[in-house]
């Protein structure tokens, strides 16, 4: 366990080095958030249709999405891991006296955390004090906030487990780009990154609910705004835990299987 923690720490500090990049990222995400909010504002201004989610709830959804982007995008690429696999340096990793799944999991987790810590705090801090239509409203009470924090954290763990599957697949395909890009695009759509899940048509929502993707992004954000009531949130957490266990199990198993057949590529 100690080894995992230190890998985690190392990565965290490593990620914190890139403060200028984070600043640029924040500016980009603010612009992005404004644009998306303005689009929805225009959609909602017609007023004739009763929407399944209010504009205020939607705005908090969008700001949280921008702030925690590093938590929820599938395609958070770590070229180092890819290179390990394709160049054959994986051999060194295998010599290490700790499980490779846990090691990589800690690495990826720390990377996302570092990136999010740098970006989410400033975005949320500013978004809380924006003028009216764009303001990120604070959660209604403390218990909602605690629920949000918990679901967000679980969502992050699910997302890392999902992305581990992507890295493991590289053992088989050796070419990281094409197939993973498709997987990422599909996954992000199903997580409500392109349009929020409540605005999707019902048949699509039914599909989305069956898959793990929405539990990492859509679910915590709606818990935050109170769009998902208390009781449903608790059930949701159980589902999150189930998915997490399943995904880690699959990942562990697939990794063990892939490693048994791994061909070290020269190097």
């Amino acid at each position, binding site marked *: 366990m100690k080894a995992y923690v230190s890998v985690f720490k190392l990565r965290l500090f490593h990620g914190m080095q890139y403060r200028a990049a984070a600043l640029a990222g924040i500016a980009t995400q603010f612009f992005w958030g404004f*644009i998306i909010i303005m*689009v929805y504002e225009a959609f909602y201004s*017609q007023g004739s*249709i009763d929407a399944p989610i209010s504009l205020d709830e939607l705005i908090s959804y969008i700001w949280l999405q921008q702030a925690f982007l590093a938590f929820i995008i599938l395609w958070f690429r770590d070229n180092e891991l890819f290179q390990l696999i394709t160049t054959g340096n994986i051999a060194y990793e295998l010599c290490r006296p700790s499980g490779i799944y846990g090691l990589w999991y800690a690495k990826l987790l720390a990377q996302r955390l570092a990136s999010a810590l740098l970006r989410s705090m400033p975005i949320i801090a500013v978004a809380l004090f924006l003028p009216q239509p764009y303001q990120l409203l604070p959660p209604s009470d403390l218990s909602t906030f605690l629920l949000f924090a918990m679901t967000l954290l679980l969502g992050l763990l699910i997302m890392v487990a999902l992305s581990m599957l992507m890295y493991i697949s590289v053992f088989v395909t050796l070419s990281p780009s*094409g197939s993973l*890009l498709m997987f990422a695009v599909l996954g992000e759509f199903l997580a409500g990154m*392109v349009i929020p899940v409540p605005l999707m048509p019902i048949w699509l929502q039914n599909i989305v609910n069956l898959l793990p993707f929405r539990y990492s992004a859509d679910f915590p954000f709606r818990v935050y705004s109170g769009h998902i009531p208390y009781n449903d949130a608790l059930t949701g957490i159980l589902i999150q835990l189930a998915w997490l266990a399943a995904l880690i199990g699959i990942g562990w198993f697939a990794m063990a299987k892939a490693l048994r057949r791994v061909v070290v590529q020269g190097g």
Partner: protein
Amino acid sequence: MRLYWKYVVILFKSQMQYRASFWLLALGQFLVPFSVFAGLYFLFERFEQIEGWQFHEVALCFAVIHMSFSLSECFARGFDNFSGMVANAEFDRVLVRPRGTIIQVLGSKFEFTRAGRLVQSLLVLAWAVSRLPVEWTLLKAVTLMLMVISGTFIFTGIFILAATLCFWTVQGLEIVNIFTDGGRQMAQYPLQIYRKWVTRFFTFIIPFGCVNYLPLLYILDKAPGNEWLYMLAPLAGIVFILPCLFVWRIGVRHYRSTGS
């Protein structure tokens, strides 16, 4: 120009060496805007219109902007990756060759997989054109072409500006994404739906409005007053590249090799 095509052919051949990877990437590139378009479709299914704009009209806007973006990403990718060229001083080699710098940087990289994106937006374009209840004339077709070309020039101009910044910063700047990716995201919808300050900035500073809004009014017969002005608005987008090229020249003169 002949030199340029030679670059294109060589790079095409080299990318075709990894055929399976090429097709998969192209397919992935096809899916990226497709998912965005699906989102657009679902939104319109629910809300029916956005400030008086119908789905097909917005689809046309979407197609034009994505076409321009993929074209410029395909051809001007060299500028997009320029920071690498400065950082490892590859640009020194460019300078000693007896050809213009711009053509060499342009020719340094082509992203043919972006064809996937292009195909997707072409399909959307064809579909939107066939569905729009607009009488198509030759002039309107020309305007549509101009819109795509002008958009390509604007995105290329932004890529060049971003590359020029590298002469001073060496590292690439993520902030430029506001104008490339952000501009693309924003220009998917007719510019009129945004707040005034956004509209103004993206009409007079970076002329996206001349690509996706003013000529669109002409095509949809919504233009008030002098139609010619609206029709020729895309030319302003093409002119945008001139100051960018000028800034590039200044940048080249300031270039100091990193020496590595």
